């Protein structure tokens, strides 16, 4: 059993009671809601004649169904309009703050809470969305939940939860040029498997993780769920505190020092016990992308696609299915594979640093996206959009032939008008390559870093950023 980890401390602080069924009633410090998974929860509350117990601890935004081109109300999609109206009515009636389109604070829920300083170390965070894992980057314990659980949090600010084991996932050493946080998490999932994290909270640690910015750490924790972990987190440190200082909802004035002291203490003790430990060497990680239909079906750009026999017998059916669906063959290289669409955005890679990386690749390359390639660049929030435009990134994108849009989840799951068509293949900075994920039942997704996606767009085929970045260093 783990002892002295951040997870253990946060769990204990928020435990209200042991329930009759054996679960723990856990207090939730920050509850985030959006338009897809909350309307039914509010309906259940009305049916039970219950009120929202702590409206001040819930924040709402709209992200999944938001059109990224024409955002005039009512939305062209009447179903999307109905969902936003339901959110507007439910939040107004319950006294919950909603950051709506045009407020300047709207965006993907997992992008806006950190950028507003709402997500802080030592908190418990819940949201009816599996990528709630993102908030773990701040040393918060954060859970994606279903709609019945959203109802429970609204009614009681608590959840019935099973305890978790803690696995420390260390990444040590420095990343090579052209290798990014996205490559690190794809590498981890590839090696630990998409169900390897079942029953665990992942504590990401090690010198490589310590050296990462908060935005990189969010990319890592975001995909803990793709590794099957119930949540993922990184211990808070000076990088965390520097990021938070001055943000709207971060502690201000005299309180800051008390907050920082408490945050330092909530981090895992140096002699903490873990249920498991896995260690990766950062130097062994190369630019990585997925080729199949689960986030674990990934490979380094220098490798060729694996033989089916390399997999365990019970996995071979799925691998065959993946080859068939993706129209790829064992032995083939992914380098040079022609693509149709490039999506840059999502709660994994829709932050300012991701967009800067894309702009940098555009300028180093100097060319323009071929006309037959469709691109969609979607900032993670209205604030990210404003910041990118203030730096002139939008002008760089437009000059190099990229389509610059408004903030939302967009083509990560295609609940808005941005969708793949037919069997199109998409280089995507999002988090899931499931069959049909990007809106076309036969559409194909290759997950990768923003840099690799940007160069892939400019070249019209899967490309390696390392030679381009190497040239930059030499010049």
């Amino acid at each position, binding site marked *: 059993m783990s002892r002295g980890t951040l997870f253990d401390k946060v769990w204990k602080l928020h435990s209200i009671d042991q329930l009759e*069924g054996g679960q723990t009633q856990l207090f939730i410090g920050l509850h985030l809601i959006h338009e897809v998974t909350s*309307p039914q929860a509010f309906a259940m509350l009305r049916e039970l004649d219950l009120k929202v117990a*702590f409206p001040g601890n819930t924040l709402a935004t709209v992200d999944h169904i938001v059109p990224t081109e024409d955002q005039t109300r009512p939305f062209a999609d009447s179903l999307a309009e109905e969902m936003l109206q339901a959110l507007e009515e439910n939040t107004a009636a319950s006294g919950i703050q909603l950051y709506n389109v045009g407020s300047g604070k709207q965006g993907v829920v997992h992008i806006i809470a950190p950028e507003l300083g709402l997500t802080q170390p*030592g908190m418990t965070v819940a949201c009816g969305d599996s990528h709630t894992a993102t908030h773990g980057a701040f040393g918060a314990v954060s859970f994606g939940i279903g709609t*019945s659980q959203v109802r429970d949090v609204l009614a*009681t600010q608590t959840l019935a939860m099973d305890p978790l084991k803690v696995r420390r996932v260390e990444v040590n050493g420095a990343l090579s040029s052209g290798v990014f946080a996205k490559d690190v998490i794809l590498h981890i999932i590839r090696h630990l498997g998409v169900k390897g994290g079942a029953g665990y909270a992942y504590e990401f640690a090690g010198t490589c993780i310590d050296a990462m910015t908060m935005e990189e750490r969010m990319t890592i924790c975001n995909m803990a769920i793709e590794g099957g972990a119930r949540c993922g987190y990184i211990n808070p440190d000076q990088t965390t505190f520097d990021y938070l200082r001055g943000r709207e909802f971060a*502690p201000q004035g005299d*309180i800051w020092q008390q907050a920082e002291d408490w945050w330092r203490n909530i981090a895992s003790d140096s002699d903490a016990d873990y249920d498991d430990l896995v260690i990766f060497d950062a130097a062994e990680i190369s630019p990585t992308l997925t080729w199949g239909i689960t986030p674990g079906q990934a490979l380094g750009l220098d490798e060729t696609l694996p033989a089916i026999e390399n997999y365990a017998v019970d996995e071979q059916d799925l691998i065959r299915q993946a080859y068939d669906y993706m129209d790829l063959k064992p032995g083939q290289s992914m380098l040079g594979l022609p693509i149709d669409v490039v999506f840059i955005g999502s709660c994994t890679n829709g932050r300012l640093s991701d967009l800067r990386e894309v702009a940098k690749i555009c300028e180093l390359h100097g060319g323009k996206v071929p006309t037959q390639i469709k691109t969609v660049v979607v900032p993670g929030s209205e604030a990210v959009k404003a910041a990118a435009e203030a730096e002139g990134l939008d002008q760089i994108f437009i000059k190099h032939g990229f389509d610059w849009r408004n903030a939302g989840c967009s083509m990560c799951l*295609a609940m808005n008008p941005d969708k793949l068509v037919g069997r199109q293949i998409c280089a995507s900075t999002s988090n899931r390559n499931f069959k049909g994920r990007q809106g076309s*039942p036969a559409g194909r997704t290759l997950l990768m870093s923003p840099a690799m996606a940007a160069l892939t767009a400019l070249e019209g085929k899967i490309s390696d950023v390392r030679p381009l970045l190497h040239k930059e260093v030499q010049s």
Partner: protein
Amino acid sequence: MSSIIKIAGRGVPLRGNDIDTDRIIPARFLRCVTFDGLGEHAFADDRSQLKAAGQLHPFSNPEYAGASVLVVGSNFGCGSSREHAPQSLQKWGVRAIIGESFAEIFFNNNIAIGVPCLSLSAADIDSLQGLIEDKPMLEVEIDLAAGSVIAADFSFKIKMPEAARQMFVRGQWDATGQLLTNLGKVRTRAAQIPYLNKFTP
């Protein structure tokens, strides 16, 4: 709150591992404000693709119409936390799911709506799926109190976290009532959590 101990009904076998919630209910069907009508869209894309290829998805196969025990492989329900997935299965008619393993959020979402997810070994899953494929009219009987699944002459011992099993047997699977009982304690704790109280020691 009612106990859920015995579930008996015909089975529907769904072969394959890592079946994610996007496949159970594709995102375009999430454009709604209620869970009504989701049952007919369960596995919509898989069903239409197999139909186009001249094959039948188990959920489209008339032999399995009216089945209530879904039998699946490993890591079933991975990916998105959308409760629309268990809701669509329940509305299609699923009252229990037997699988090699389940993704955790999906497992918990099913508890919340009263659908137990039970585990068997990969070999037992294969046998049970084979039995049902041979005889779709076969009755599959789950007994959560005894921890068993019986189909024809076969009896399987189920694996399930003890807490979850007890919740169904004792009728405590809907936690809301219990959570509400403690609202006083919750308010007391909220007043003690440092980050909600200006970090005053």
